[in-house]
């Protein structure tokens, strides 16, 4: 069972203060909600670099190879023989390689986003509130029952306009 405390904030600097204080107190894992990406929050959370780039690289390389492969394979299978011209020619086939690199690389990037961000999500997670997509910031701290009081105190001290527990 997930237990934790959620604080809703109107101000950005109050949210940053709460993140700093909760990290210092080591109460549990934090999830921060924000209506728009803010560098201040990213600096406070200090997350690892997103691995989405690996999906992009893998997809792009696969696409580039697949583009050459499909053009060469089809041309060899059904050759259109014109005197003096090679069956498999790399210059026109680079067009297919490039296009498939972009296509598969782009779609892999989206797949990477979905996998890393955990979407599509069928149900709303505990601790989310609709106001976080409009104007408010939220900090959810997942912690054992004996630390809920401490989490609540920190959130209130930092200026949360609403604090509530959830399980």
């Amino acid at each position, binding site marked *: 069972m997930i237990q934790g405390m959620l604080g809703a904030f*109107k*101000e*950005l*600097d*109050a949210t940053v203060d709460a993140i700093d204080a909760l990290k210092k107190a080591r109460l549990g894992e934090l*999830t921060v*909600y*924000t*209506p*728009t*990406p*803010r560098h201040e*929050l*990213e600096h406070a959370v200090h*997350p690892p670099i*997103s691995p*989405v*780039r690996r999906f992009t690289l893998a997809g*792009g390389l696969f696409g580039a190879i697949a583009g050459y492969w*499909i053009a060469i394979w*089809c*041309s060899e*299978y*059904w050759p*259109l023989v014109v005197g003096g*011209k090679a069956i498999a*020619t790399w210059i*026109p*086939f680079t*067009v*297919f390689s*490039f*296009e*498939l690199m*972009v*296509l598969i*690389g*782009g*779609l892999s*990037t*989206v797949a*990477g*986003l*979905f996998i*890393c*961000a*955990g*979407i*599509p*999500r069928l*149900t*709303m*997670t505990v601790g*989310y509130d*609709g*106001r*976080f*997509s*409009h*104007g408010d910031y939220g900090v959810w701290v997942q912690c054992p029952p004996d630390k809920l009081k401490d989490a609540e105190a920190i959130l209130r001290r930092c200026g949360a306009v609403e604090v509530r527990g959830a399980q």
Partner: protein
Amino acid sequence: MAALAKPENDMPRPNIAKAGLQLPAVKDYEQVDREIMATLRPTKAWFACLLVAIFCLIIGGTAWTYQIHEGLGVAGYNPPVMWGVYIVTFVFWIGIGHAGTLISAILYLFRAGFRTTIYRCAEAMTVFAVMTAGLFPILHLGRPWKFFWLIPYPNWRLIWPNFKSPLVWDVFAISTYLTISTTFLFIGLIPDVATLRDAEKNPIKKQILSVLSFGWRNSEAEWRHFARAYLFLAAFSTPLVLSVHSIVSFDFAMSLVPGWHTTIFAPYFVAGAIFSGMGMVFTIIIPIRKFFKLQHYVTLNHLDAGAKLCLFTSMVVGCAYMVEFFIGWYGGSPVEQQYWMNRVFGQWWWAAWIMLTCNMILPLSLFSQNLRRNPSWLFILSFFINLGMWFERFVIIVPGLSHEYEPWQWTGYVPTFVDYSILIGSFGWFFMWFLLFIRQLPVLALSEIKEIVPPKLKRVHHHPPEAPGDFEADTPGEFA
């Protein structure tokens, strides 16, 4: 942190970009949601425009049905002019589709601030323009139901398309462009759809929006992956924009037709595409900002910056026209020289001069700052740009085919009512989708606009707040 603007009330104010404050009349995130979501309410004008668009589409659909029944002969083709209005319009719509990705991807990578408020419209315009363009090669086929023969799919005859043909390159380039542009638009929409979901009261609509938003919940981790994915999609889209119209230009440049077989075509087509796309952006965004009262989001500074881009690409295109003409003379080929004289001073002079006037001469007015910051003039000019760019493609395609090497091949070309009806139908198809889009989804990007609105702060920062009367009249700001 930038100082917060403090308008007296919620009424939009004259909007001046100042250092660190791009939209001074937008005071908080709630205002962004409230004003932009208000565009989703249908109005009588919206219904009227939609009806007109559907009527135009019906005209085009009827003409196509007639053409399928009677054959391609009703379309005004006159051998050897076997590429006419359909291919002209195909290139025209592909060009329109370029400004969207330019604004959303290239200007994103260059951190151009003025893109933020106009890119959603431009992206949607791109997707619908490419959808429209994609119809024309099919319309142009004698047996349109065989269009899939260009796709390398496994078949019992074990034959495959010719991968050395620019027409097959086109199939790959345009389908890739449509897929990536649609993906780019859709990914950017996810956080905004989540905002709509959270504001929605109707349970059925809320359920639909929940599915479309993929359960997005605005967590910092989601934003981090989102920002990285968006960056890479932009990085992929940037060379894609340049490649697609280059490949479309290869349809012409790879042939030996006089006036087509030139190395200048790829950059010339790309610049023309961006120019025409910016023209269509003005055609769309200026009425939207006026009728939805969004002048304090799409400010005069943003229009000014867009007009400068338009002016620059107009000059690139103008330079390409001059170079083409010069090389036609300087190259010394009598066939090329004949072709160019016929194009500019002969049989097709009227089309060539419409093109030169609309694309080279009228955009020079944008050297005037007053005209760059005059939405009415930009709107009127955008029509001339659209007209001029359609005629640019006409002037490239028809005079080339009607004046080839042998005098016995020389002929004319007159489009028929079927050509015109399908051209009108294409505008109906494009605007129908666009109007449906602006009714269902935010026409400006909620989450990105919030990024440039100063956040609420608990502690007072040492920036004096703007006094209510401090907003200047619209004068050049940081983007001007």
